[in-house]
């Protein structure tokens, strides 16, 4: 406000001064123009500098994200390998399916899919699923599982995630196992959903496992 008043005052002073009555003449006064042009160039340089800094920072962020993604991908892959080894070792055709179901129920991160199906859970896609016709990896709604990841539950009981190492608490997995007997064999199928969120990353891997 003070600034405007001063300008107005200056203008009126000039208007009253016989030397400055001609506005065109005052515009022809070039005093200070070099400094003005220099300042404008300096401002342009500053904008170029800011743009350059932004580019460099963005570039580094992209690289960091790439690194974090690859790191989490390796960890999620490790979790799937971990689950696959356990499933391969333990889902065996020489063990009764009921015994195997108990074995699975007592292990963190592993859940009998029949309980999930019986609970009419949102994580299960169909209510008239025929295990002999449709493998379990077509039936688990991975998006729903991931959306509820920290509050997963079956029949009101919280699902505990498994971890392949206490050193990697940000990498977890959950396995839904389906075991059933046919006339000839016991068949085991499983879906592993591994999630790694180290350093703010978020990688999810779904893998289907089969054993018979």
């Amino acid at each position: 406000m003070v600034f405007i008043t001063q300008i107005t005052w200056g203008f009126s002073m000039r208007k009253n001064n016989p030397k400055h009555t001609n506005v065109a003449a005052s515009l022809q006064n070039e005093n200070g123009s070099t400094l003005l042009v220099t300042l404008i160039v300096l401002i342009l340089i500053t904008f170029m500098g800011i743009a350059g800094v932004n580019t460099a920072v963005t570039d580094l962020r992209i690289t960091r994200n790439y690194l974090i993604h690859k790191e989490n991908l390796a960890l999620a892959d490790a979790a799937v390998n971990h689950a696959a080894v356990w499933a391969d070792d333990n889902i065996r055709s020489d063990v009764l399916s009921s015994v195997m179901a108990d074995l699975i129920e007592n292990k963190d991160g592993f859940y009998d899919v029949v309980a999930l199906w019986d609970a009419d859970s949102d994580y299960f896609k169909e209510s008239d699923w025929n295990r002999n016709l449709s493998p379990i990896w077509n039936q688990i709604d991975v998006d729903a599982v991931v959306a509820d990841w920290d509050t997963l539950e079956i029949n009101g009981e919280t699902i505990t995630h498994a971890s392949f190492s206490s050193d990697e608490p940000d990498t977890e997995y959950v396995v839904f196992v389906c075991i059933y007997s046919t006339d000839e064999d016991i068949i085991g199928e499983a879906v592993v959903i591994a999630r790694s969120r180290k350093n703010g990353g978020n990688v999810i891997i779904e893998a289907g496992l089969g054993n018979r």
Partner: protein
Amino acid sequence: MALKSEAGLTLIEVVLAMAILSIGVLALGMMQVHFAEGTARSRQLVHATDIAVNKIEELANLDEGHDDLQAKTHESDSPLEGYALDYFLSWEVEDVAADSDHPAHKAIDIAVKWRTGSQDHEVNFHWRKGL
């Protein structure tokens, strides 16, 4: 006649303008150095990450008995070929016995190290391979 007019170009103005412009150009030059360093650092991180990920892929496809999967620290004294900088790859393999919570598996930590000037850099990856 008008071109010969030196109105608006006093010596003080020129000196002042040159001084201000010099500061600006100097700052821009320094920023260029930082941009170049940032870009180089990004490139190094991408190279190191790719080296580690490629090694994981390689180890994933090896048989359990392969030399590269024996329980020890594997490292080479010579840098990897094909890169402008010297990247050193090492990986430590540990055999983890089965227990109530974990099946037997190999815990593999992969490290890629490189140096720029007097500064050491390192990227680490943790991975597990089933037996």
